[in-house]
């Protein structure tokens, strides 16, 4: 009541209710995501495991990103591979062949 009166007198619109509503919407969304198991961490670990079977990798050089778009989301996997990994693999193959 006093709040409304003060607002009338000041001629300004109360913006706090808008802030409150924005927060409630934001947090409802974010808290929903939080409950899910960490999809990106799981993906990163499994991709790392598969690639490591064939190529020696630095685990820190594997980045998995998910960009959410309005209609489609992009999953970006970036793996930095040391030079010469193919040769290493060929050598390994030869060795196996020789046995």
């Amino acid at each position, binding site marked *: 009541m*006093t*709040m409304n009166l*003060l*607002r009338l007198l*000041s001629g*300004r619109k*109360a*913006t*706090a*209710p808008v*802030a*409150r509503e*924005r*927060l*409630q919407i*934001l*947090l409802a969304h*974010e*808290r929903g995501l*939080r409950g899910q198991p960490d999809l990106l961490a799981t993906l990163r670990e499994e991709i790392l495991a598969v690639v490591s079977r064939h190529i020696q990798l630095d685990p820190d050089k594997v980045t998995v990103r998910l960009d959410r778009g309005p209609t489609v989301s992009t999953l970006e996997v970036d793996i930095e591979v040391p030079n010469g990994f193919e040769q290493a693999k060929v050598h390994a193959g030869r060795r196996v062949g020789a046995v």
Partner: protein
Amino acid sequence: MLPASQTRDKDALTDEGVGKIIAELRTKFDWVLCDSPAGIERGAMLAMRYADEAVIVTNPEVSSVRDSDRIIGMLDSKTVKAERGERVTKHVLITRYDPARAARGEMLSIDDILEILATPLLGIIPESQDVLRASNVGSPVTLNNAASAPARAYIDAARRLMGETVDMTVPAERRGLMNRLLGRRAA
């Protein structure tokens, strides 16, 4: 008091290293205050990792309350205590609060913030020019001007943290006669 990490490379800190230091400090001090760097990243993660209690400092802005909510989520899931199935005791400290603006509906109220964050209140620090004045000279407001409204609010909050019962009021500026006659003046 451990200030927030300001190293260029935040990866200089490791989980084990921080754990070791906190474990050592635990044996020597009653209170170990661990400041958290800005942003919700590795630095903040490590600052809270071994905490028994957490003071979440927020102000009545949407972005600040939102980040506080995320930090509360991390306190409940990513701390050593949470992983052991225990709980980190949490408190909210609201800074830069202006009761007059909140009353006019121009600022989120204390009740709004507490309802959204669902975390008990430790204290309310009023918006005040004394804070910048103290910060300018590199001094905590509690030492620079202990009689100022924000200093009294911080001291009350510290006493509550230590378990004392202190009435939850928002200290107001004590304006001198000259100030009142001259109206609002720049610092």
